[in-house]
């Protein structure tokens, strides 16, 4: 108990605090993450950019332990979730995640997709869970698709459902793993709009994306990763207008055409 308190004190307002995170494969020959430290404060929108293979997705997936780090600590809400004795399932309830390929449950309709976790895990009544789900669907303009199955939705619709499915658990932080990379270009906007409105409400977000426009507009902090390390971070303005690291300059020259 005392440990947790000290940790909380040191952190200040940090919701997630990452220390020396490493992820090695093949006995250390492949270093997907090679010592990453980061603090994510409440209400921050951290956008992580970098070339493919830079470790940014691995980093994001480590935050809720979908990837188990080889080394390092992740303190979430004052608790060390990398401690094998901690119950990761309880922490994950408070960390919503949105995937590149949506990952809606194929065998359930949209409403069931959104209510199954609150009902089974938070023991909410069906009425309560459905009411919340319908309100969220309405917010993203999909209230008429509640009884549809994922296969009947477009990519953009699926991703909007995936976002509100995560919100149904009332998470403290939302993790986005390239949420628009699998979308047709005309559907990217509708998903980004939902994310923007979430950010404007003060949701803490960590976003891995190639959408530089989103990063410039919405991020409170942009983090550039390459080779499993954070090479530079700062406000969108600092990163995009005045990059220092040569690799970042090179990266930006390729993506900002």
């Amino acid at each position, binding site marked *: 108990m005392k440990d947790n308190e000290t940790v909380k004190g040191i952190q200040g307002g940090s919701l997630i605090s990452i220390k020396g995170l490493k992820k090695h494969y093949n006995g250390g020959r492949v270093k997907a993450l090679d010592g990453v430290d980061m603090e994510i404060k409440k209400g921050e929108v951290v956008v992580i950019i970098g070339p493919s293979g830079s470790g940014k997705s691995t980093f994001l997936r480590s935050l*809720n332990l*979908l990837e*188990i780090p*080889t080394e390092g600590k992740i303190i979430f809400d004052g608790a060390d979730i990398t401690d*094998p004795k901690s119950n990761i*399932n*309880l922490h*994950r*309830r408070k*960390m*919503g*995640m949105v*995937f590149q*390929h*949506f*990952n*809606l*449950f*194929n*065998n359930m*309709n949209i409403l069931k997709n959104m209510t*199954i*976790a609150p009902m*089974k*895990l938070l023991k909410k009544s069906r009425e309560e869970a459905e009411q919340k789900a319908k309100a969220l669907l309405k917010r993203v303009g999909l209230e008429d698709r509640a009884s549809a*199955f994922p*296969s009947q939705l477009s990519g953009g619709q699926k991703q909007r459902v*995936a976002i509100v*499915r*995560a919100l149904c*658990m009332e998470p403290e932080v939302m993790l986005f793993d390239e949420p628009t990379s699998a979308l047709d270009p005309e559907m990217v906007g509708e998903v980004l709009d939902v994310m923007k409105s979430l950010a404007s409400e003060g949701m803490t977000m960590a976003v891995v994306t190639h959408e530089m426009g989103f990063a410039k507009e919405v991020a409170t902090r942009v983090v550039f990763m390459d080779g499993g390390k954070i090479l530079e971070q700062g406000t969108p303005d600092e990163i995009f207008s005045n990059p220092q690291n040569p690799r970042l300059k090179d990266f930006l020259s390729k993506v900002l055409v």
Partner: protein
Amino acid sequence: MFDELRDKIMLCFIDNGYWEWLVEGFLHTVLITVFAVILGLVFGIILAAVRSSYDKNEETLKLRGGVGYYLLKAINFICKIYITVIRGVPVVVQLMIWYFVILVSSKSDIFVAVIAFGFNSAAYVAEIFRGGIMSIDNGQFEAGRSLGFNYVQTMIHIVIPQTVKAVLPTLLNEIIALLKETSIAGYVGIMDLTKAGDLIRGRTFEAFVPLIAVAIIYLVTVVVLTKVFTTIERRLRRNER
């Protein structure tokens, strides 16, 4: 010509009441098949659960450390050996081993057959289900885990329902194969459908009629079974894809 055929049919089934053998044999075949399928499914699913849990969690458990990893690894190894042995030994030989060696004191021949065919089928069912579980996109699994479901809950609510649908056609294959495999029960003196037909042949010195009759009964059973499975499959798929 039709008169001749009719006489043969009368001789083989009606005159001496041999039709009763066919009925009894068919009932034995069904009895053995049904219970062997149940045993095979239950035990096979347990085997599949172990094997796929190991496949899915190996890396995680290894990194998290502790006894759990070694325990699962050991149980998985035993399951693998079981599957290898069962699949590597002809089912007739297995049946005879059960009958003449392991369960030699059993009073019920049918029971021995159920055990032999059930434990044989379990090995195949296990691999069918494991293949099914591994074929479900890992994203489904990750989405479940990311919401806070634990491994078992994710399996029960999300992965298994999709797996069942995916494996139904292959499972039907296994059940049909099992039904027909029971025709070797005569090796240990059980009068199943095949044995009944063969007994009639021996008594009447008439091969064509009883054997064709047996063939038709198997065929019709398989057709009915297929029909049932197709209906279930269609129901399950109604709302998707």
